């Protein structure tokens, strides 16, 4: 598992180490330059002081100078090129050096050589470059040692600070863990660092949407259970009447009624299923081109027997070639619900017209009847599920599920269509017009 804390710590330490190394290099280079300048000055001063000294030619077996003197080599010649002095007989330096400063490579490393000519003598002083480098290195080392010593302390501070900086995340995690489907109140956004706040804000948005969805779900289930109870109570009573029947005729009447009750309960559960299927996000079938006229024709053919049983004149006036993009099954459900409603709430002897047409840019489906209509004050609410208009309570009208128009609205919304309620045939009854954009 990746850890922000570990990651930050590692990179902080790597960064610090690189910075310290850089400082060491810089210190070393500067110290070396300064040592060069200083030692060069020293060499020239020393050479100047040696010029006045009387020298004689050195015997070949002259003893070496004291220990440590190998740091410097001094050679002196007279004007004839006779060597007057050599501090380190075993050292090899160029016999005839250029005057001024030179750097000479020998078997024993690089040497810095200063030669000067004065009063007929050549004085040459050489010093190994390694001495200067060692000095510079030791200076660089002295600079970085305290920094290196501070590194663990730095790591500790970083570790603690990062933990403190990240502690709001722990608090948020705690608060989120305490949320449950029943407790979805938003998380507190006060006192949060600006880095964490967008996350909590987004989480709160999600919680709110989740809460809405759960609420809708719960109320749908409660409504559904409540609505199922009525047909089930009816079935329960009808079954008791069938049980009580003493004659064959009574029993068969009771059974016919029982069957009616079962059909109604079945229809309600089918409608509930249809509505659940239209919940956003449930059905994402790929849209196809649907012939609205053909769909309406199939629905009218299906419902013709029902209309005929009520002596209702059900007809279709469909223009050919009116198509919409959408879900064929859902569109059939939409048309079927509208026509079924119209037939249900139109008294016998009435008339129901289904119209399919093109109108400008849109495809139009209209179902018009001369039935009971919907009172103006009910028109807003009839799209709510389980709401039944006052006409639906009129004695004799077969009771619907209260879901038909809710389903129509959902399907229409999914197809970006508008549903409009208006007057039906010859100014009476109800006309429902669905406009699909194309």
């Amino acid at each position, binding site marked *: 598992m990746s850890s922000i804390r570990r990651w930050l710590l590692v990179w902080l330490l790597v960064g610090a180490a690189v910075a310290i190394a850089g400082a060491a290099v810089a210190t070393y280079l500067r110290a070396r330059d300064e040592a060069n300048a200083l030692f060069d000055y020293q060499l020239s001063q020393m050479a100047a002081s040696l010029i006045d000294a009387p020298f004689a030619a050195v015997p070949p077996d002259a003893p070496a100078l004291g220990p440590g003197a190998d740091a410097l080599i001094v050679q002196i010649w007279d004007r004839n090129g006779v060597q007057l002095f050599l501090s380190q007989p075993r050292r090899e330096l160029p016999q005839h050096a250029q005057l001024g400063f030179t750097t000479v490579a020998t078997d024993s490393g690089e040497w810095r050589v200063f030669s000067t000519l004065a009063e007929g003598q050549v004085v040459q002083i050489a010093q190994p470059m390694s001495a200067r480098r060692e000095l510079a290195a030791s200076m660089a080392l002295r600079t970085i040692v305290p920094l290196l010593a501070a590194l663990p302390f730095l790591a500790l501070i970083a570790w603690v600070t990062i933990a403190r900086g990240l502690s709001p995340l722990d608090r948020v995690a705690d608060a989120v863990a305490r949320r449950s489907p029943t407790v979805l109140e938003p998380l507190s956004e006060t006192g949060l660092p600006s880095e964490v706040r967008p996350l909590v804000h987004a989480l709160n948005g999600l919680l709110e949407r989740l809460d809405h969805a759960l609420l809708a779900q719960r109320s749908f289930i409660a409504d559904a259970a*409540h609505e199922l*109870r*009525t*047909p*089930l*109570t*009816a079935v*329960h*009573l*009808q079954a*008791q*009447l069938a049980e*009580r029947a003493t004659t064959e005729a009574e029993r068969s009447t009771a059974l016919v*009624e029982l069957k*009616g*009750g079962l059909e*109604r309960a079945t229809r309600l559960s089918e409608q509930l299923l249809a509505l659940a299927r239209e919940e956003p996000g449930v059905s994402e079938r790929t849209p196809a081109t649907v012939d609205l006229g053909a769909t309406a024709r199939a629905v009218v053919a299906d419902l013709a027997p029902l209309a005929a049983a009520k002596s209702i004149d059900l007809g279709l006036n469909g223009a050919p070639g009116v198509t919409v993009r959408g879900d064929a099954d859902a569109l059939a459900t939409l048309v079927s619900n509208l026509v079924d409603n119209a037939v249900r709430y139109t008294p016998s002897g009435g008339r129901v017209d289904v119209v399919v047409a093109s109108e400008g840019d849109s495809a139009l489906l209209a179902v018009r009847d001369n039935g009971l209509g919907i009172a103006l004050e009910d028109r807003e609410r009839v799209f709510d599920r389980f709401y*039944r208009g*006052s006409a639906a*309570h009129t*004695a*004799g009208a*077969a*009771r619907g599920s209260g879901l038909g128009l809710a389903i129509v609205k959902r399907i229409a919304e999914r197809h970006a269509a508008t549903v409009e309620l208006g007057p039906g045939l010859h100014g009476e009854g109800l006309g429902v017009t669905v406009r699909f954009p194309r």
Partner: protein
Amino acid sequence: MRVLLAEDDPMIGASVRHGLTQDGFTVDWVNDGRAAETALSERVHDALVLDLGLPRKSGLDLLSAMRRRGDARPVLILTARDAIADRVAGLDAGADDYVVKPFDLGELAARLRALLRRGAGRAEPIVSYGRIQFNPSIREVRVEGKAVQLSARELALLEALLARPGAILSRGQLEDKLYGWSDPVESNAVEVHIHALRRKLGADLIRNIRGVGWMLAKRDSAAP
């Protein structure tokens, strides 16, 4: 006993009416609150079976209005199992009893009988009057312990007279107990049924007050 049923669901309403009729009640059925109010104002019903979820005027409103008017007739409400708050509100608004949907027709009838009995100030389930014992739950009449077969209409007449012993009931009042709105009222039916009752239970049980109506004879005079 004539009962007003206020229930908006056509299937439930039809079944309850059917079941209660089988149990000897005369049932009138309305399917909204305002129709129920109109029916109650006729004052012909002995009890009200009320669904709380009525359209146009809710069952609760109807019930409280009824009690405010001083109408003390027994009211039995039909409620849902989970709607305890509704049930409590219904009882507080003046309901006398409730049954929970889905309910049993037999239980509904038994509770209605109990309500009517208590409404008449009796605790005994069996109505005794002189030599006559009437058991409303099984619709049985005994004279000196011997069961007597009565038709449904005869029973309804007897029940109406037993409910208010000593009171004179007019032909109209008796017809109200016998016929629901949908039943055709037969002419002379009351006389015919009274005649049958006298024949089966004894001629001195029911007295005719000419031009006014009928009443039960005094207990002692009904004795042998």
